[in-house]
């Protein structure tokens, strides 16, 4: 028992250090990139104020913000505030970045979680069907469908979905996370879900093909293995083999793939949220980029790096917990 605790501490310490160094690297790179970009935060701020500002006032603002200080000093200043939990104030929303990320992330999380579960379940199921009917008609058809779907860009598919389901059929609302003209606190869970379905489906649609194709290949490998040959020699039928050996051996790689797909999911959500005007982290990132909102852009970048890193960490840890072969080596 003591050994397990020590191992757990060791694992979390290792991953903690890895994530911190990763975030440091990401922060340095993004900070440098933003600094050398033609974005002028002061001008952006003044535009946001909506009033004219005299050149003297502008110099004052520049001085107050330390825009003309050397890069390293600016970085250290930003970092020391960040460590204290102050991520700065967004230029377009005029609110603390941390608050925006917090509330946008909840929306995005709901969207991504739905899409993630949907794509995982659908992808795994379709992958199993393709693998079981390898090179026969169901496999051939599904494989082509998967290839087509994985070559469609998310935003285009989102537009088509909007056109078909929202404009023509009027099944789903055309955008946002709640009805227009209703106060945030009055929106019901059902209304939220109703607004969530179409973007979630768009997002899920994009990633299930990938998961299905991977699952298919893994299942084909398993079915060609010697242990399946022996299972057949012992009289196990097709579906018994899938149940006893197939699922057991493809679930692990599928799970890992699923958690490692956080990055793609996040990238896709930027597109999907913009098409559906869904107020999530992805649309905030796009808005921050387009409007040169430096504090928000840096904040979202760091946060998404953290999100993806945690996804990969979970994938690695799960492998160790579920696969007895890796468990043994680790112990």
């Amino acid at each position: 028992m003591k050994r397990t605790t020590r191992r757990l501490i060791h694992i979390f310490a290792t991953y903690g250090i890895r994530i911190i160094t990763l975030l440091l690297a990401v922060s340095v790179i993004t900070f440098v990139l933003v600094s050398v970009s033609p974005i002028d935060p002061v001008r952006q701020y003044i535009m946001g104020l909506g009033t004219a500002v005299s050149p003297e006032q502008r110099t004052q603002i520049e001085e107050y913000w330390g825009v003309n200080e050397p890069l390293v000093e600016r970085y250290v200043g930003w970092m020391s505030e960040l460590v204290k939990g102050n991520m700065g104030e967004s230029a377009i929303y005029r609110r603390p970045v941390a608050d925006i990320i917090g509330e946008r992330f909840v929306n995005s999380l709901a969207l991504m979680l739905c899409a993630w579960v949907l794509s995982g379940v659908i992808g795994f199921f379709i992958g199993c069907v393709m693998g079981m009917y390898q090179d026969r008609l169901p496999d051939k058809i599904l494989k082509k469908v998967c290839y087509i779907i994985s070559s469609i860009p998310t935003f285009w598919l989102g537009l088509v979905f909007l056109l078909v389901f929202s404009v023509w059929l009027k099944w789903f609302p055309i955008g946002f996370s709640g009805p227009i003209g209703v106060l945030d606190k009055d929106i019901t869970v059902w209304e939220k879900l109703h607004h969530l379905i179409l973007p979630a489906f768009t997002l899920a649609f994009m990633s299930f093909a990938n998961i299905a194709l991977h699952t298919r290949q893994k299942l084909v490998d398993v079915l060609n293995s010697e242990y399946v040959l022996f299972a057949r020699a012992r009289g196990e039928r097709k579906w018994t083999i899938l149940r006893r050996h197939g699922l057991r051996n493809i679930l692990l790689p599928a799970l890992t793939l699923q958690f490692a797909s956080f990055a793609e999911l996040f990238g896709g959500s930027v597109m999907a949220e913009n098409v559906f005007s869904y107020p999530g982290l992805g649309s905030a990132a796009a808005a921050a980029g387009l409007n040169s909102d430096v504090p928000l852009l840096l904040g979202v970048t760091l946060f998404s790096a953290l999100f993806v890193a945690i996804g990969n960490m979970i994938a690695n840890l799960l492998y160790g917990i579920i696969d007895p072969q890796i468990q043994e080596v680790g112990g």
Partner: protein
Amino acid sequence: MKQKDETILEIHDLSVSFRMYDHGLEQTDLQVISDLYLTVYPGEIVAVAGSSGSGKSLLASAILGILPGNATVHGHLHYKGQELTQERQEQLRGTDIALVPQSVAFLDPLMKVGAQADGHRKPLPTDKRKSIFKRLGLPDKTEQLYPFQLSGGMARRALVSTALLTDAKLVIADEPTPGMSLEQALEALRMFREMADDGKAVILITHDLDLAFEFTDRVAVFYAGTTVETALASDFKKGPDALRHPYSQALWRALPQNGFQPVCGFQPYAGALPKGCLYAPRCPYKTAQCMDAVPPVREIRGGEVRCYYGA
């Protein structure tokens, strides 16, 4: 010769070929087993001996009907006098015909050994399996282990146990003994012997000729995908003069205790087989006839041989 309905397994003129892509999109049929014969009677253990690539393991797959999809099988395969069709094979495998495969790779890497040995048939034969594990010298905790935690010998014993668990009338054991200690190998072979004495039949595919001569009744010698000779195991103990085919005699002489004499040349590869007798290119007694046509199977002194001159 005994009647067909007395045999457990009767194979003659069996050929197996694989459809392969040769150059680009050109398809060719690669013949890996040709004109093979083998007869197995109840109560006996037949050893199948021959070098790697002589078609031993493929024969096992052909009997069970688990060859890959690009394989074609021709010839006569009879189980208890009935033709072994694909349908019949599906009914029989795991119940009437059991396989003991070669290596730990045939065990599901993510399934505990106990559950795996028990198999998929309900009710689970857990008690019987426990006693077989005990007899084979597998410790109690083995059933809780995963295949990668087993030693080579333990894995083989676990594989042997799967066949012993069934009520199969025919067991095909594909090199079951390597990796076991002599004692364990003897115990496994003793268990096969008991099965045979019970009226069942065992085909023992092996490289370990000494053990084979000791524990089996007859030995079938394979060469390049065909049977060149079937002889009584006792003939092999007597020496080369009791054997009928030049290859069996060469095999006997190549054993360490019999002089360790090698024979020049190689076993021909599938796809590049000679036209006549498959052994002719290496045979010291070959004549023009041997190079032209495949010799028929002849019965000589209680054994069978595919040679024009065998004596």
